[in-house]
């Protein structure tokens, strides 16, 4: 049981896919301007990593070894398109999906998804694979939300679109909205993480 607990907690903190493995950084820079977008992206990636790990773990013994990457890609692409289609179908999420534009489709190329399938799901039973996938998605989401929190608060002075610093007369900071600042914040988080891990 403690092994399962470790499967869940390890990717979220100690072995975080972004800060320790430095995977999925590209999308982390792109979608963290606002908390809302970051939250939807985090949930979408969590669903995709979790379900793709589960499905591929279920069929892992039937996949021909020579085409395994292609089969993984097809399953991941299927899930990403499903998530995208579902987000487009609801009024509440349509605008966010439009705002995330190409990054939604680019979940397919997120290294975390394929990485977890190759490294974990193809060699483990369905339940641990599902948990590993979900936990990696959550680990990714946690960093996304921390970065988006600082960028939205210091960039636009709002949180989830509600004026916080803006209400106190804060004019906003263009540099924080641009991608370089995301890299700097991410660098600081990795720094703290390294101090904490050693």
């Amino acid at each position, binding site marked *: 049981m403690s092994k399962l607990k470790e499967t869940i907690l390890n990717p979220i903190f100690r072995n975080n896919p972004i800060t320790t493995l430095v995977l999925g950084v590209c999308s982390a820079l*792109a979608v963290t301007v606002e908390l809302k977008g970051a939250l939807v992206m985090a949930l979408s990636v969590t669903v995709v990593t979790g379900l793709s790990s589960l499905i591929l773990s279920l069929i892992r*013994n*039937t*996949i*021909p*070894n*020579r*085409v395994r990457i*292609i*089969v993984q890609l*097809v*399953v991941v*692409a*299927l899930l990403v*398109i*499903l998530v995208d*289609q*579902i987000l*487009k*179908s*609801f*009024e509440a999420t*349509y*605008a966010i999906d*439009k705002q995330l*534009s*190409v*990054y939604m489709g680019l979940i397919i190329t997120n290294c975390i998804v394929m990485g977890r399938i190759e490294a974990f799901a193809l060699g483990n039973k369905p339940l641990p694979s599902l948990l590993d996938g979900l936990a990696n998605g959550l680990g990714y989401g946690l960093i996304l939300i921390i970065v988006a929190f600082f960028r939205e608060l210091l960039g636009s002075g709002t949180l989830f679109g509600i004026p916080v610093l803006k209400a106190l007369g804060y004019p906003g900071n263009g540099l924080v909205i641009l*991608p370089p600042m995301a890299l700097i914040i991410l660098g600081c988080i990795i720094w703290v993480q390294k101090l904490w891990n050693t």
Partner: protein
Amino acid sequence: MKTNGNTYTVIYTTLVCVLVAAVLAVVSQALKPRQEANEKAETVRQILVAAGYGEMEGWRKADNTAVLDFFNENIVGNPQILSTSQLKAQNYNIKHDKPLSLPLYRFRNGITVLAVYGTGLWGPVWGYIGLEEDLATVAGAYFDHESETPGLGGKIKDDPSFRASFKGKKIRQEGQIEFDAISGATMTSRGLDDAIKNWISAYQKTEL
């Protein structure tokens, strides 16, 4: 189980592809009406912004029915809302001198909104341009795209100062509107320029 033979691999991949395609087809058909309703409301939002009724941020907060109600109350006549694929069909007709039925929205505040459609760098770009009563001065504009690069070509939609820069511009000869291109997004800017030129001169021939 022997999973490395050629026959097995071919049959397996075929089955996976057919199965995945079937799932996607079913889901796409099931969700289509909802997506079309959302897209229609989005188009109406863009038309309203081009017509000078508030900014996009405000319209995002209003739900689909409220947006459509406001549109129906303020529109003159009953023009059809064209989807982007219908705009694409009209764009083909413009290029090949075929009979046109271009969308035209006249509002109670005196502003007439025209559509434009063309090709950016990665995919289609389109938009709506509102004209004052003289049908020569731009009152407002809103542009959208399918897959331009965020931060470069994507600015035609995301940068409010870009669409604001159209305000007060005059339509010049052959339907041209002079605007500042976005640096780093030459192809998108050029595509948008062509879209405006082709469509407005087509409007000038038929309706205005």
